[in-house]
């Protein structure tokens, strides 16, 4: 097929636009664990439904207006011997029409918007599980008043039961965000902010702090683990039993050495090892069940022995500015501490979820 040069030129100019469309299509195909576009909770789903309807309106307007613009550019280009420009100053009727049409579209966007605003502002339905969320530079603390459990960076919730988050900060502003389950809400000092959601299916959901909170805002992540009710109850039972550090076997001399180090070095001044009634006022994250968690360093590093050792060698290396100083531990000390922390395993991921990354 022979394409006339003028048409070829036009097609060439459309290329960037086509490129954009391809980018859009590719964007939906990949797998994003922190996505807002694949809701697994009622709150996130309400938001997503509303957002999608807005996107369709926007897409329609985009195609129409950009189309008219491109058409005008091609049609009215100056050509030798072409017509003179028509000298009109406006058109009152047209101007009224293109004021009314966008206004009407906005009404169609506004009605579901207001409805969703009021629906999501209502208190959570049913008998919710209350979880206190406390932002710290740069990690999240979670407390379950119902079970008297305190933990950090990993929040367990039961599938199907509404969760009522009461959120505040211990220092500067943060924003708690679980994209697939709810949305985000800023946290302030001295007043509780609320957010609620009901997880629709079991899974490990990523989130991270969304309000700039200082040097390590970029590595202030967390996981929400939605577990089947029975698995959640099992987790609660095990954590409730963690009213003291997990005892170490007599024969495990390395871990015993680590236990001694934990008690005599700076560790114990900032970190508690029990989930129930931890001493108040500790500035570091609660480390009960640290041996059984998915991640360390506020949801940033997989919880492997190598990563624990790397962290203990110098926390400032991976997370510059973190409040935990370089303790100057020897390699022997580090090995012992890793062995000890690994014994602090109370509850691990339910087998049904263990396959999830």
């Amino acid at each position: 097929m022979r394409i006339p040069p003028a048409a070829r030129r036009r097609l060439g100019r459309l290329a960037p636009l086509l490129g954009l469309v391809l980018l859009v299509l590719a964007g939906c195909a990949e797998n994003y664990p922190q996505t807002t576009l694949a809701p697994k909770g009622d709150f996130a789903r309400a938001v997503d439904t509303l957002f999608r309807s807005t996107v369709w309106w926007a897409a329609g307007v985009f195609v129409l207006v950009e189309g008219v613009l491109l058409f005008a550019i091609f049609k009215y280009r100056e050509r030798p011997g072409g017509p003179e420009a028509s000298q009109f100053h406006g058109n009152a009727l047209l101007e009224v029409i293109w004021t009314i049409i966008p206004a009407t579209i906005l009404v169609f966007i506004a009605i579901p918007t207001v409805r969703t605003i009021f629906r999501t502002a209502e208190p959570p339905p049913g008998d919710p599980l209350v979880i206190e969320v406390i932002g710290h530079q740069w990690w999240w603390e979670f407390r379950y008043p119902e079970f008297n459990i305190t933990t950090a960076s990993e929040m367990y919730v039961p599938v199907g039961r509404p969760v009522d988050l009461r959120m505040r900060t211990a220092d500067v502003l943060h924003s708690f965000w679980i994209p697939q389950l709810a949305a985000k809400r800023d946290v302030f000092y001295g007043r509780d902010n609320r957010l609620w959601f009901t997880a629709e299916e079991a899974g490990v959901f990523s989130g991270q702090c969304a309000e700039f909170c200082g040097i390590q805002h970029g590595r202030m992540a967390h996981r929400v683990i939605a577990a089947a009710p029975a698995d959640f109850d099992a987790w609660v039972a095990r954590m409730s039993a963690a009213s003291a550090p997990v005892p170490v076997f007599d024969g495990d001399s390395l871990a015993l050495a680590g236990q001694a180090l934990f008690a005599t070095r700076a560790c114990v001044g900032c970190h508690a090892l029990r989930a129930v009634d931890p001493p108040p006022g500790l500035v570091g994250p609660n480390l009960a069940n640290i041996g059984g968690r998915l991640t360390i360093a506020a949801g940033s590093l997989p919880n492997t022995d190598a990563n624990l050792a790397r962290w203990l060698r110098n926390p400032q290396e991976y997370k510059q500015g973190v409040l935990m100083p370089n303790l100057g531990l020897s390699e022997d000390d580090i090995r012992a501490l890793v062995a000890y922390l690994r014994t602090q395993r109370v509850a691990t991921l339910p087998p049904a979820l263990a396959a999830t990354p």
Partner: protein
Amino acid sequence: MATTAVEQPHPHSGAHARATGVWSWITTVDHKRIGILYGVTAFFFFLLGGLEALLMRWQLGAPDNTFVSPDVYNQLFTMHGTTMIFLGVMPLSAMFFNFMIPLQIGARDVAFPRLNAFSYWVFLVGGLLLNSSFLLNAAPNAGWFGYANLTSKQFSPGLNVDFWVIGLQILGVASLAAAVNFFVTIVNLRCHGMRMMRMPMFVWMSLITQVLLLLAFPVITVALILLMVDRFFGTSFFIPAGGGDPVLWQHLFWIFGHPEVYILILPAFGIISEILPVFSRKPLFGYAAMVFSGALIAFLGFGVWSHHMFATGMGPVADTVFGLATMLIAIPTGVKIFNWIGTVWGGSLRLKTPMYFALGFIAMFIIGGLSGIMHSVPPADLQQTDTYFVVAHFHYVLFGGSVLALLGGAYYWFPKMFGRVLGEGLGKLHFWLTFIGMNLTFFPMHFLGLNGMPRRVYTYPEGLGFELWNRIETAGSLVLGASFLVFIYNIIRSRHHIAPADPWEGGTLEWSIPSPPQEFNFPALPTVYSRDPLWEQRRTHGAAPEPTRVSGQGIHLPNPSFWPIVTALGIAVFFVGFLLGVNLWVILAGGGITALGIFSWAFEPAG
């Protein structure tokens, strides 16, 4: 950049020869020279802000990258935002305010020429002071929005936030002084027959911008004073442990911050509304609607600030009010876009470089406007706010909008300002690199934001699916960077291409006088009878002959003065005193110099 073209003697220098040399620039009160000073300085800062962006993009090009440290990254994004807004886009608009407003309204200068010089010098010292923090590795690092209580002494003990507070305070003085000046200039100095509804659209949008500046900057000034006393004198306006409220800062900041967005975009609207008619060979479509929609955008712009704060949990009523008010802004903005298309429609389009940028502006601004509507839906914003989706949105309006318009304006008015024409081929190359580069850089940010990448993070881990888009964006940012090299090369090359008075067959008064204009602008002040006086003249009398340079004997012009720069330096010294651990002697010395400057200025013969 432009100095190469400027400091050469002009080939057409007439009898009214200009003073030359550094001293003449330091003491100048000529609005055209001050405009060029604004332009050169702002372009330098703009390139600096662009460099900061490139460093950030390089850092984010790969997961867990360690190209820059977290603290340096935080300094970079804070300074990128602060620089682009206060030292780049605003003063680039001010360049056009300075150079073009008097020419377009047929005036010899602005209403207060020495105040104009003062504005520039204060802007310069403010910008230099802000950036000097890099030399101490203490550049501001709490974001351009400086949310309390991270900015408190407890959580930001270093000089970083002090530099930010003081730099912005100084820049606010410059903006307010300039706003008073241009407002009075436009209201009082229009030539005969230049009724309000005959003013060029750029002048109209500039006038509305000055109103926004006058009403918005006092709010940030108050907020910054409160923050200053919190930091320097231990009060606790924004410190919750002391009974203060960090949310108060957010309200004050956005009561300023949202109108500020329109301060950045309305001049761009004005520039586009100048370029489109000239290159479509027909009048602006719906002049009155353009004026009123601009005013309405500005008015509504003061009632939507809390849409930046939906995530703070204001309650459903406030969410509804601010969400719907925000949606309303889409209506006058839509009217503008449709009227621009109406201007193109039925025209005979001359696709020169300024027109490329103007049409590119419309295409990109539509995208930014539509993502803006998505943010006006409060529940959806609860997912989008503080993610890259927002970064995508405001880069489409600020880069795709303001910057493309400013570049279009630069190509359009460069001949008038410097008497040289920029190359068409290089100009189009510049446009396409900018257009492709910006879309590669900013479009994928939509996907990243919706897929969970928050803003202001110095890195991201592997496995969240962020790698590919970030790599594409980094590549795009390099294209964008290269486009500005082409622009700079084009400016350098323009030395050899002398511009006529009216290279584009424009309709407004600035094209009736030689390029560059003589010091007094108009040998005799013009009288106009229509919106496009030159087109009117062309229709009735045919094309005007090339205007000649005349002696200008007996034309009264204001005297040069060095008191504006002295006063500006006094203000700088005053504020530096706070940076030096609240050094009372330095503060008093600065206050003394400022007082001396103002006093001498007041009693100096103006001309």
